[in-house]
């Protein structure tokens, strides 16, 4: 039902991990391809991802193709702390702007008065009942997507993995399509729980299929199963939607992704899931660092691999499921923010996770505010704006990173 084909996009995301498999396969027997990989690996520079060797062959795609970190490889602790402080300041600023800007032009003093001493006037209600919930939702959804993205990129060892790769978005969409098309669900409150149930079910199915093989879940299988299941679910969703124009009409709005005009109680409904997900996810930071060394090294260091992966996947599922259920599919943030953060922090998950957690809501808030301004007094859905402002930044970064290398 979405204008771009989600299957194709996810397939693109799965790519680097898939290359690892080929690299492994090829290196099993001597051949031109294996030699080529080795040559390219040797000529590749030190990069953020090369800093986490995952076995002789698995390094190949990252070492050759991943852009090296600009500047010194080890970013000093002081700079990181300053960066984190700046990020938090940016978040505070974005929150303030989000409260102050909207289709009703209100002076900052009125906004402040509404927050501190509400008198029940229309202006104050605008701030308290419309802008405040929307801003809080943006903070929650942004933080959830940012952390989930960082986790899934670490878990799949794929710098371009998207939290949607576990089938969360496709599962939520499919459940809502089923509800609308077959059971005549019309109330948006029901979307929340349908979406959450669909998201969690899809992620569990992906995880169970991926875990069936020997040695438990491995990153590549997780990615591939997720891509495949997402493709099937979104194909089924769009077929159902195309057969029935009424369903299509509802799904096109849900599919755009928005944090405005959510039903009452949305925040309260998703808050517990997001808090548990955030706590679980942040707790994974240190074991994920060990996991980045490869399964054997991680085991030697005493990391509990299966436990870490399971906890990580559970966290991603809760975070993404809740965010998608509340706001619809908002793409790109979970992919771009952690990817960009690694340029700032280097490969240490103890920094990547908090940075992603803080910067993702900044992007979401800025996108939401811009969405209110560009077609004022109408609004653009935030899901439409995120990519429009995030993508040019990503392109600039990838070009600059390359220009820095010989």
């Amino acid at each position, binding site marked *: 039902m979405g204008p771009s084909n989600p299957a194709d996009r996810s397939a693109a995301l799965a790519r680097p991990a898939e290359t690892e498999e080929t690299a492994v396969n090829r290196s099993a027997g001597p051949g031109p391809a294996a030699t080529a990989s080795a040559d390219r690996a040797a000529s590749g520079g030190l990069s953020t991802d090369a800093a986490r060797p995952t076995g002789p062959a698995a390094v190949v795609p990252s070492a050759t193709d991943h852009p090296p970190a600009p500047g010194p490889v080890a970013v000093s602790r002081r700079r990181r702390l300053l960066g984190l402080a700046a990020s938090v300041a940016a978040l505070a600023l974005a929150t303030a702007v989000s409260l102050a800007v909207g289709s009703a032009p209100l002076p900052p003093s009125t906004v402040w008065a509404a927050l501190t001493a509400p008198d029940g006037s229309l202006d104050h209600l605008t701030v308290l009942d419309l802008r405040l919930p929307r801003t809080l939702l943006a903070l929650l959804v942004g933080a959830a997507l940012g952390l989930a993205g960082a986790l899934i990129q670490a878990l799949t060892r794929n710098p371009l993995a998207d939290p949607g790769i576990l089938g969360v978005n496709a599962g939520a969409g499919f459940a809502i399509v089923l509800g609308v098309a077959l059971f005549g669900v019309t109330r948006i409150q029901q979307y929340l729980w349908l979406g959450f149930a669909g998201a969690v079910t899809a992620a569990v199915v992906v995880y169970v299929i991926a875990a*069936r093989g020997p040695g438990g879940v491995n990153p590549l299988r997780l990615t591939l199963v997720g891509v495949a299941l997402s493709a099937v679910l979104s194909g089924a969703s769009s077929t159902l939607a195309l057969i029935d124009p009424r369903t299509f009409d509802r799904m096109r709005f849900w599919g755009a992704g928005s944090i405005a005009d959510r039903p009452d109680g949305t925040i309260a409904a998703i808050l517990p899931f997001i808090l548990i997900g955030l706590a679980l996810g942040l707790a994974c930071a240190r074991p994920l660092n060990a996991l980045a060394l490869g399964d054997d090294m991680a085991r030697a260091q005493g990391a509990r691999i299966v436990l870490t992966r399971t906890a990580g996947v559970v966290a991603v599922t809760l975070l993404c499921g809740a965010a998608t259920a509340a706001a619809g599919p908002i793409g790109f943030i979970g992919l771009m923010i952690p990817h960009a953060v690694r340029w700032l922090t280097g490969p240490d998950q103890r920094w990547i996770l908090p940075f992603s957690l803080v910067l993702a809501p900044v992007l979401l808030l800025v996108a939401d505010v811009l969405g209110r301004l560009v077609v004022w007094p109408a609004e653009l859905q935030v899901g439409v704006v995120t990519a429009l402002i995030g993508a040019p930044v990503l392109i600039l970064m990838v070009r600059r990173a390359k220009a820095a290398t010989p």
Partner: protein
Amino acid sequence: MNGAFTVRIGRFSRRWSIRALAVGVLLTAAVLACTAASLMIGSRSLSLAEVLAALAPDAHGPNRLVVVEWRAPRALAAALFGACLGVSGAIFQSLTRNPLGSPDVIGLNTGAYTGVVFAITVGGTGYLAYAAGAIAGGLGAAALVYLLAFSGGMRGFRLIIVGIAVSAMLSSVNTWFSVKADLDEALRAAVWGAGSLNGIEWPPVAFAAAAAALLALALPVAGRRMRQLELGDETAAMHGVPVERSKILLVGLGVGFTAVVTAATGPVAFVALAAPQIARRLSGRPGSADLAGSALVGAVLLGGADLIAQHAIPGTPMPVGAVTVLLGGAYLVWLLLREQGRG
């Protein structure tokens, strides 16, 4: 089955693997079977003899109309477009050295969708308007991604990131249209975007065939360059291959083959992805791209998927793109499960 023999005619010589030949013959037979089935099955069921009689140059009557005017364009389109997508996928998987590579990496289909959305917005209807929009949008997006990703040589990883970024922006535009447009227009765009052979007629098929034939002229050269580039950029350069020019040629060819299909039917997912993979497993030569095999497998896949799309739900023809996504995804899951069983 690992035997091989060599054919020499004058200066031309080529080593043929018996397995590759056998696979080729079987695949060709499968393509013919799909085409024949597509011509025979329908609300007016025909026997093979009746189909052949209707195809004869001096045939008349209702069967002639059904077979030649209604079913033949669709059957041929399925085979031809499947082959185009297979070749395109093989080229991109070789070029990006990545088994999941496809022309979508560089935003082709998303761009084509944006082009069609634009065509609908300015009031265009019908095949020509959509085809023009799709080609302009698709090629524009591909060129933009290539230019943005190019600085001091083209590298696979940067191409992928820029492709994702540009695709994300374009799909934002598409979503915006879908929300802003009235239901009828949004639905028309979505139906196009699902990729369908329903109701395709001779003119688009003939145009696509001509374009594909032109592109195919470059394939012998492209196939050689692909194998040389698979050795690595440095090695290929040492062998005297003009690396960057070859890459532009390959990107252009891959984009061209997909654009031919997308212009006529809308984006059809998964065939470009799956065909080279299947061809590789069938020919028993992992690692090496096989253009002819990929083309044949692509033709079988799209032909088979279109049979299902036409007849799975009687009275409700589905878009073939939906079938390829469902089948392709299910196939990928099955493949993963099977490989786990062995491993």
